[in-house]
């Protein structure tokens, strides 16, 4: 049972890192980034390629840096120029980007499934209350916990974190106080993309790599963001943990219904609270 809960935490943690990036970008830009799953996929491939020479930490760093640059470019070249257009235009453009990034990955890494090995330093298993559990999965949980902690400390205590929270709640008022919200948004989109990249890299040894691997996690992340309450970091955290557990228990006990359960959960939460767990207004 404990092992099941830990497995749920592994998936919940990965979901959290991806979703929190969506939440960050939604807060600043008021758009749902359909390309987010592709950033996750790109992170997995970049990590895969670098890991062979640079090891696990090198891969993680490389994926974070490459994806942060992609994110900054996404904001400067696409989101900012389109900010005065109807949001639907931007959403469609991010959807187009999803297709382009998938083609790009297929061109560079091919269509076949790739398998990323578990980093040697984290190979093997440990006994937890008599049950064996892979070390690497514990590492994934730890990375997710560190991201959650680091992000909330950064948002609470740094000046930029304050600007991010302010602009997510009310970009116009924040800007009229003299905050360059465009620069805040470059930082935020870069960070959101880097987190997707990190999450792609660490999940690579657990999944098979393919250019379309981003779609599934994208959909589950949307569910997390909606259940958590659009734009809420705390809500996304809780929702990711819950959906991680539900997803995993579903796989174990009702495998035929497993992919449906998160949707049903979302529908249930929306009936109970239309603004999500932590959403107050939108």
């Amino acid at each position, binding site marked *: 049972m404990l092992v099941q809960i830990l497995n749920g935490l592994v998936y919940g943690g990965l979901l959290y890192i991806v979703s929190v990036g969506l939440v960050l970008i939604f807060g600043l830009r008021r758009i749902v980034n359909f390309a987010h799953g592709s950033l996750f996929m790109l992170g997995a491939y970049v990590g895969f390629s670098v890991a062979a020479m640079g090891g696990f930490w090198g891969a993680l760093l490389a994926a974070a840096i490459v994806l942060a640059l992609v994110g900054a470019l996404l904001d400067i070249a696409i989101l900012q120029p389109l900010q005065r257009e109807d949001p639907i235009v931007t959403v469609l453009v991010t959807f187009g980007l999803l297709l382009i990034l998938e083609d790009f990955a297929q061109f560079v890494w091919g269509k076949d499934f790739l398998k990323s090995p578990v980093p040697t330093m984290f190979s093997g298993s440990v006994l937890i209350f008599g049950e064996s559990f892979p070390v690497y999965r514990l590492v994934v949980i730890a990375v997710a916990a560190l991201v959650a902690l680091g992000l909330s400390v950064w948002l609470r205590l740094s000046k930029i974190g304050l600007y991010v929270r302010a602009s997510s709640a009310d970009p116009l008022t924040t800007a009229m*106080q003299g905050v360059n919200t465009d620069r805040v948004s470059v930082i935020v989109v870069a960070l959101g993309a880097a987190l997707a990249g990190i999450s792609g890299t660490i999940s690579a040894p657990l999944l098979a790599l393919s250019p379309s691997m981003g779609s599934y996690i994208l959909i589950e992340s949307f569910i997390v963001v909606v259940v958590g309450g659009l734009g809420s970091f705390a809500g996304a955290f809780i929702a990711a943990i819950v959906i991680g557990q539900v997803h995993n228990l579903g796989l174990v006990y009702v495998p035929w219904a497993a992919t449906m359960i998160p949707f049903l959960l979302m529908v249930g939460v929306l009936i109970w609270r239309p603004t999500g767990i932590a959403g107050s207004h939108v």
Partner: protein
Amino acid sequence: MSELLAFSNVVSGYGDARILHDVDLTIGDGERVAVLGRNGVGKTTIVNTFLGVARLSSGEVRLAGERHSPIRHFIAARRGIALVPQGRRIIPTLTVRENLAIGGAPGRNKPWTLDRVFDLFPILRERANTPGTALSGGQQQMLAIGRALMSNPSLLVLDEPSEGLAPVIIDELAVVLRQLADAGTALLLIEQHFGLVHRVAERYYVLSKGTIVEQGHLAGISMESLKKHVAV
């Protein structure tokens, strides 16, 4: 007296709708100017025009003598024009202290500090760690003014600050605004409350259907005759 904010022949609006027509107005260093007008005549659109929320289709806006092309919303604050927006717009997810801290954006000299704002409005110091929107309406107005002061403006623009406030609080507001003006801050007070305008401003414009239909000095004018002037 040097000019801080000037509109000349400004036409602006939203999308295809023109709201302001040929608006001319100026506010000089340390001046206290009011814009009066009924609901929906375009008062907030004046603010939105220099912020860049409404689109300027012809005419010119100048900030501190320089031609201002209002594209990016944060420029006005960095050029010394701070805004207390209509409805106060306190950010609900931030505490009182944090709401003030976003006003400390870079680029200006810093005579105003968190401590000085707390000295001006002691209630904000007492409630520094509560959510901004947990304050009463009057306290939220003080918070919005304090937040604007944090950017060390030479001109403070207030959009209907008396809205929804009890008469005694409006009296307090008048005292605070006079204090700020005496300390050298210019004021642009957009209001429908004659009493507040009469006590604070030295000059006024009347806006009706998007144009300035009347302007004058308040010195020596009684409240009654101000009301008559404005009743257009």
